[in-house]
């Protein structure tokens, strides 16, 4: 929240300390979820390399959990890959939304694309200043990539040491992260709110009836309520 209201003129590093502080909470939570992913995959019967390699090259928490879930439930590799891909289609929309945030240069784009996740996009878009947008994306993204993969490795090696992470309320932490990052925009921009709230309601209504990943995509139908170009006038 605070990060949104503060729009500093300068780009000096100490100014980004609050970004690191806010992002570090998400890193801790991501690390613990990573441990549980590694543990679930290995105790479910996959070899240690599978969750570790998957986390490095797929790098998408919800898709990884779903794909491994389908695999361990005997759904087969094709269904597992299809489920994960369906969940990740939203990253295409996110990539389009943050394309100008990544920075110039081919390497920044190629590496930055891999770091596009729900959390990094939310962190970036919560900033109003372009310099802080870029900093928020890279700070949250690099940190999250590091802790996620270290966490998965630790979980894969240690097995079921953490127990059920629901005990720590982590399942409530991730939606709350998105609430904290998205609420200022919803509050300030009536046109976005007009699309987002009916979209979310539609997603909730569809959830029991359609495959995972579809409800969130269906929410984009809310954009039909965005209205014509008042902002250009």
């Amino acid at each position, binding site marked *: 929240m605070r990060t949104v209201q503060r729009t500093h003129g300068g780009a000096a590093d100490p100014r980004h300390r609050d970004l690191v502080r806010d992002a570090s909470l998400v890193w801790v939570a991501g690390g613990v979820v990573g441990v549980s992913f590694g543990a679930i995959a290995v105790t479910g019967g996959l070899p240690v390399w599978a969750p570790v390699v*998957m986390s490095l090259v797929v790098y998408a928490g919800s898709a990884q959990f779903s794909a491994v879930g389908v695999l361990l439930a005997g759904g087969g590799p094709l269904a597992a890959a299809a489920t994960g891909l369906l969940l990740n289609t939203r990253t295409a929309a996110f990539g389009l*939304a943050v394309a100008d945030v990544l920075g110039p240069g081919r390497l920044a784009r190629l590496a930055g694309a891999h770091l596009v996740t729900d959390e990094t996009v939310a962190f970036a878009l919560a900033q109003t200043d372009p310099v802080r947008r870029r900093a928020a994306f890279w700070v949250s993204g690099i940190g999250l990539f590091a802790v996620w993969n270290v966490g998965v490795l630790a979980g894969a090696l240690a097995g079921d040491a953490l127990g059920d992470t629901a005990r720590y309320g982590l399942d409530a932490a991730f939606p709350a992260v998105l*609430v904290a990052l998205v609420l200022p925009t919803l509050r300030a921009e009536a046109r976005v709110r007009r699309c987002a709230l009916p979209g*979310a309601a539609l997603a909730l209504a569809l959830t029991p009836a359609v495959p995972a990943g579809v409800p969130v995509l269906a929410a984009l139908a809310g954009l039909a309520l965005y209205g014509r170009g008042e902002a250009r006038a």
Partner: protein
Amino acid sequence: MNATAGMILALAVGTYAFRLVGPALHGRVELPARVRELLSAGAVVLLTALLATGALTEGGGFAGWARAAGVLVGGVLAWRRAPFAVVVLGAAGTAAVLRLAGVT
């Protein structure tokens, strides 16, 4: 290559391709202002839908009262402009305490 490795590879390549669409087009295709506006609104629409389904559902059903109450507490804290850490820890703490008290 075994089936698990093939699944991981397919998922990795497909996911990276999705992610690369925006950054690869950037600078080559000049998107109209209206489209750019819709794209950033679309990202917020997706994030809002994710937080709603993440707060309330799990595997197609209700996620339980502990998680829903936790996220609600986080939402109230965020609405009152509490710092980010307070929002996140408030949500997780509420869910954890409720579960400790036997609420699922």
